[in-house]
């Protein structure tokens, strides 16, 4: 069911990208990106592989460096200044395609690591938060197991909980369900939909168009480093304007 179009014109922007450009050597991977993300907004970014969509969100928390333009998160400008980067990473959580859980720590330890070492929280408080999050993603019984003992869907849900443990204001998702077996995709998407319903600002790179229709305020289509088209989900899917968008949608929507 489609989300009703929301009027976010009066909410503040939490992420601003101005004329952002990035090159890998000579290859121009992000080309004059302008993007404004409002608080509580849920954006789905889609596009063919190599379009730069993962690179875009990885630039936001400085896992990749942009060479030109400005990225401002919550008023903090992203630069080589380590203090700025750390401040931004405390506010922004990320969920990876390959989960990247720490295999040598238990599930609970994975969740409490950052609160203890970055926020200097006492262990008991961190564990309470951790267990609460595990309840929220519906696998509290796995707390003392190791990542290698969990299924892919369970690991990704733990990864979401780990990112949420730092109480971020913004959550970035880099193709969170692409590495999962089909029967596990739903459990992860359900968690993401709940998260969306609670008002989190989310940028999601994904091919799951059902999720976009259910939750997104905006769908952005990227191709060859540019933002080609963006619109509300119903308009985007029903009436794509650009030829490239039409081509892409034709390839991925096959039901």
């Amino acid at each position: 069911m489609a989300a009703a179009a929301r009027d976010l014109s009066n909410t503040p922007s939490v992420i601003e990208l101005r004329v952002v450009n990035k090159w890998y050597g000579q290859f121009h991977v992000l080309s004059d990106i302008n993007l404004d993300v409002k608080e509580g907004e849920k954006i789905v970014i889609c596009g063919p592989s190599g379009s730069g969509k993962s690179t875009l969100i990885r630039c936001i928390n400085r896992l990749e460096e942009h060479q030109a333009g400005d990225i401002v998160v919550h008023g903090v400008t992203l630069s080589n200044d380590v203090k700025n980067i750390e401040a931004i990473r405390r506010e922004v959580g990320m969920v990876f395609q390959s989960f990247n859980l720490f295999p040598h720590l238990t599930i609970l330890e994975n969740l409490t690591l950052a609160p203890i070492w970055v926020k200097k929280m006492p262990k008991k408080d961190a564990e309470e938060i951790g267990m609460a999050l595990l309840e929220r993603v519906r696998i509290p019984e796995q707390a003392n197991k190791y990542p290698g003992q969990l299924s892919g869907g369970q690991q990704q849900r733990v990864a979401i909980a780990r990112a949420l443990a730092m109480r971020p204001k913004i959550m970035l998702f880099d193709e969170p369900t692409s590495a999962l077996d089909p029967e596990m995709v739903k459990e992860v998407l359900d968690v993401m939909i709940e998260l969306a319903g609670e008002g989190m600002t989310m940028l999601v790179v994904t091919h799951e168009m059902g999720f976009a229709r259910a939750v997104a305020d905006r769908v952005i289509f990227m191709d060859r480093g540019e933002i080609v088209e963006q619109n509300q989900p119903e308009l985007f899917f029903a009436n794509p304007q650009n030829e490239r968008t039409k081509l892409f949608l034709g390839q991925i929507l096959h039901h």
Partner: protein
Amino acid sequence: MAVEAIGSTARVKVAPWNDPVIRGWVFQIVVVGLVGALFWFLISNTIDNLQRQKIASGFHYLEREAGFEIGDTMIPYSPASTYARAIWVGILNTLRVAVLGIIISTVFGTLIGVGRLSRNWLLAKICEWYVEAFRNVPLLLWLFLIYKMISEAFPGPRQAIRLLWDSVFLSNRGLYFPIPMGDPIHKWMAVGLFVGLAAALVIKRWAKARQDATGQPFPTFRVGTAVTLGVPFVVWLLGGAPHRMSWPELTGFNFTGGMVIQPEFTALLVGLVLYTSAFIAEIVRSGILAINKGQSEAAAAIGLTRGQEMRLILLPQAMRVIVPPLTSQYLNITKNSSLAIAIGYPDLVAAVNVTINQTGQAIENILLIMAAYLTVSLSISAFMNWYNKRLALKER
């Protein structure tokens, strides 16, 4: 319908030469028989030869007087000491160079391994050339080169290089430096060191508990080091701060007094460390490279600093890949220390070699060497295997 029982209890008759179990045993008995025959052949020849050449048997020679000098000893020794003591001196010398070699080359090798991964191209290349240079040339050659350079580059005792206001002397007989004279307070200082170490461990536990409870981190390393070194220092002060030193002095052709690090030991240690560090650098580098890049990204994404990321995420995982080959390198240092005989450092093999020459009892002595090295090797292996098991990742 009657279901036929699978694997019915009636045993099928198998001809004995087709039965794999019997075949297996026949094969084993034949092989063991051949090996046994070989051993019998060798042993009977040996007994024969020993009798013919009137070589003694047994380990009684260990109680006889050794009659040879050993230049570098950790415990008191003279030519009037027994063979047993001479061999014991050899063992201690081997352990001394092996333990120091392991510690220093681990540190140095890790630095070079991390250096090879540095963002600075120059640093990475220089480390790479170091590794290639030392790995592709025999250790013995490096030992000769270093030993010759030490003994020929440095002047004789009479023209020794004087450092630190004539208190330290560098010559081709070694590095002589002053050392505090023996004093009863030293025993207490050693006790103090252990007390300090114990206290540091207690502090570490307390700090962890405190962090768990309140979240406040504590500079455990710095405080622990201060305590470990501080307690013996306080003991020294309380004992009246005795500072009588034994100074090296030039008497005749060489120095007496003070303490000396001899060129043979130095050459062996430096050669072993430089050579093994090259291999350890490669091991550390592969260990760090083996870690999935996503781990670094995930650590960065949740806000850990570079130091925390290295300490909490990367190093624990790298250790898994590093420990098994590192064990081999530690064993190699121990075994390579036997090259000491080529440059005149009196290690176990050198001491035993002289013993063989003087007593003619090759077999007993070689058994001694093998037993000693096997003990050290198996201990190191056992310890590292235990450590390795502790690190193993739990999987489905």
